[in-house]
């Protein structure tokens, strides 16, 4: 597969390490969230057959974490964003 890195352009997916569903960005706060909140965050997945937002790490590249939107039926990649931008957009900060 080829991932179109927002900074570096097309790169072979082999340079990346896959983590999983981009919902992992939404980590609850450990001081306020319950075990069940963390269970849902850590273990449950939509696992769609179709468009899937997922986290890839450019380990053999520039070390950016990316959010890749990819169709799990066809492997077509619809969008690639820097995970840091997505995280900030979702309100994550410090």
């Amino acid at each position, binding site marked *: 597969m080829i991932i179109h890195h927002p*900074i*570096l*352009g097309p790169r*072979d997916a*082999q*340079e990346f390490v896959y983590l999983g569903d981009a919902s992992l960005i939404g980590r609850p706060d450990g001081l306020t969230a319950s075990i069940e909140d963390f269970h849902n965050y850590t273990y449950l997945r939509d696992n769609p057959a179709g468009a899937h937002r997922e986290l890839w790490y450019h*380990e*053999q*590249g*520039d*070390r*950016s974490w990316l959010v890749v939107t990819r169709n799990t039926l066809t492997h077509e990649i619809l969008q690639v964003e*820097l995970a840091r931008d997505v995280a900030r957009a979702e309100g994550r900060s410090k």
Partner: protein
Amino acid sequence: MPDFILTPITALGHATPEVDIIGPWTITERADVALASLAVRRGRLGDLQAAAAGAGVPLPAAGAAAQGMPYSSFWMTPEMWMVEAPFASHEDIRAHLLPAFGDAASITEQTDAWVRFDLAGADLPRLFERLCNFDLAKAPAGAATRTVMEHLGCYLIKRTDSLVTVYGPRSSAQSLHHALVVAAQSVL
């Protein structure tokens, strides 16, 4: 105070760097470069750029390298560069850079984290197409990228059409060197 000095060896384990000439290509180990990573502290890009300009440290764009004297550098990751300088004059490169950048940057010595090979000669793409997936033929001079060779994460810098620098993990210097030599002999 002890009165001795420690004598360095090269990444390939010799007193002096190794040079291999295979067909049209020369593969040269380079031990005469000091390296440091230069990263922007949060929100301090402006200060860092100013300091870099003052110190003569180029800050090339993503995927690029820039040559200078004494400082050259190449882009590593957003808001981080690898700075190169002559080892003879800048062995303690971090000490040279710190005063210029102060607390606008995080600077880390990287000199001995890497082994450097310079590959010189005509038709280098024919050699590198056996080594990595980087499209060397299409890349402009001054292109710098991370890529994988022999399972190793390396930095590749296209200085000119006939000169390419490869930085690989120092502990795997021998494996990387072996891969370069074998590829050259195979393509030869």
